[in-house]
């Protein structure tokens, strides 16, 4: 498969413990006052690699991305970028959040220019670069619109354009396509892969959809919850460029099986047998596996 350069971003026994409550320590007796969101998470992502993270809700996926983005401080272990410990946010990493987080008072154009303003680019240069990336996500006609005038899929594309515009080395994406319909999502997948191949970014992609993870990634990291840990990693050796048809190949199916089994054993060990599993015949995997 693809050969990638050296390690770009990595974690070493990373952990994060949240303090609960409003910091005054007044909690009902018996309730824990801390929550271990991440425990001993060690991952390593190479330059240009596309890695997905899947895992049950609440297993710490967003928390992990926030730490990598420099927005949250880990409470144990280390996180590195370019071999240096991550000390805070920086333009070498771009995060695309679960809820788009576009600035509603800025037009599409001005939203995409935001990082460039922070970077200190001149007005004219800013406008050119922003337009280039608005073009890249196919929304040139909407450059002067405000976010409220856009659909969910368009907002997501603008959030991607905004993150790409200031040219980070790593894109951290938190369930970016969770809120769009199936058809739009398929389109956005193809678009994202096209952009990825064109820009050679390193991407860490959090998702609930197993199919999405396999379709997009070179590698899928499976996480477990309470506390959030890495359960396993699956290397996806499907040929690129990938098209939608690949989802019905036996190889794709076996990856789906693999990941599903991991997640299933994980729910087995952490909870009572769930009704969800009861509905499936042992070993069979739903076509569109979503966790």
């Amino acid at each position, binding site marked *: 498969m693809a050969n990638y350069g050296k390690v770009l971003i990595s974690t070493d026994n990373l952990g994060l413990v949240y303090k609960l409550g409003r910091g005054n320590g007044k909690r009902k007796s018996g309730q824990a006052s801390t929550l271990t969101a991440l425990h001993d998470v060690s991952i390593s992502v190479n330059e240009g690699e596309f890695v997905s993270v899947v895992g049950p809700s609440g297993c710490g996926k967003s928390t992990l991305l926030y730490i990598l983005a420099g927005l949250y401080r880990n409470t144990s272990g280390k996180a590195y970028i370019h071999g240096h410990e991550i000390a805070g946010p920086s333009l070498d990493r771009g995060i695309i*959040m679960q*809820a788009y987080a576009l600035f509603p008072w800025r037009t599409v154009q001005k939203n995409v220019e*935001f990082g460039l303003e922070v970077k200190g680019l001149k007005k004219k240069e800013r406008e050119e670069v922003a337009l280039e990336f608005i073009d890249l996500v196919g929304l040139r006609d909407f450059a002067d619109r405000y976010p409220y005038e856009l659909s969910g899929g368009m907002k997501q594309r603008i959030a991607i354009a905004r993150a790409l515009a200031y040219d980070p080395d790593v894109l951290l994406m938190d369930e970016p396509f969770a809120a769009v319909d199936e058809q739009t999502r398929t389109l956005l997948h193809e678009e994202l892969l096209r952009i990825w191949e064109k820009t050679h970014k390193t991407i860490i992609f959090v998702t609930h959809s197993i199919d999405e993870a396999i379709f997009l990634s070179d590698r899928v990291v499976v996480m477990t919850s309470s506390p959030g840990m890495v359960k396993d990693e699956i290397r996806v050796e499907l040929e690129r460029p990938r098209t939608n048809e690949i989802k019905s190949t036996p190889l794709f199916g076996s990856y789906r099986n693999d990941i599903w089994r991991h997640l299933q054993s994980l729910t087995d060990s952490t909870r009572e047998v769930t009704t969800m599993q009861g509905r499936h015949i042992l070993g069979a995997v739903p076509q569109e596996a979503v966790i």
Partner: protein
Amino acid sequence: MEHTEKKQNTLLTIYQKSILIVVIIVLWIIVPLYTDNIYVPSLIEVLKEFGKLAATGELFKHIGASLKIAFIGLAISQAIAIPIGVLIGWFKKVDTYLSPLLVVMRNTSILAILPLFVLLLGIGEVSKIAIIVWGCVFPTLINTIQGVKTVDSNLIRSAQSMGISNTGLFFKVVIPASSPYILAGFRLSASIALIVLVGAEMVGAFYGIGFMIFNAQHAYMIPRMYVGILTLAILGVLVNLLSTKLENGVLRWQESNTNAV
């Protein structure tokens, strides 16, 4: 036809919006002619007086004096309320230190403060401006605090992820994100400025609309008193119109639920 239907609709809303006011105007013209109560002159008489006062320029002298004070007071109050509101909303410490005092001040009746201000600052413009400042600070202050405290944390994180400085965050995210609150506070303050002003002018003044009303009442110049009241009503409506326009202009980026057809 869609076009004529739309036209009919606008006609209907104009009718719905104005019918009550029109009825009152008509009643105000007709009823006094039959009741013959000197305290309720017909609108015609009031308008005649209005014309007279406008022709001599006296009315505009009063309006000018009032507006000048209202404007200065409003400007000062907003210049105090917005920065302090932002600081209280953003810094927990400032909030802890200032809020109790502000709660006390806000809940002290402005009518109780007014005589004190007159004593301390005299019956000139200064005491009037001071009382307007007092009255106009709190709506904007409270709204600004609320606005800053409720800025979407995703937006803050998003900006921080792009390595923005703290000052940048303040001006590029916190202020614009809370601007709907700040402007709503401003609109409230603008109408309060006029209301408080009239009170101040009634306590001690030699000019201004409030003085004109008060003075006319004392001298039994009833139509003249109504001219003052009418002028104030018109000014109030104008101020509201202007501040709403400003609000809509600045907040173009907000989805308004009247856009849906």
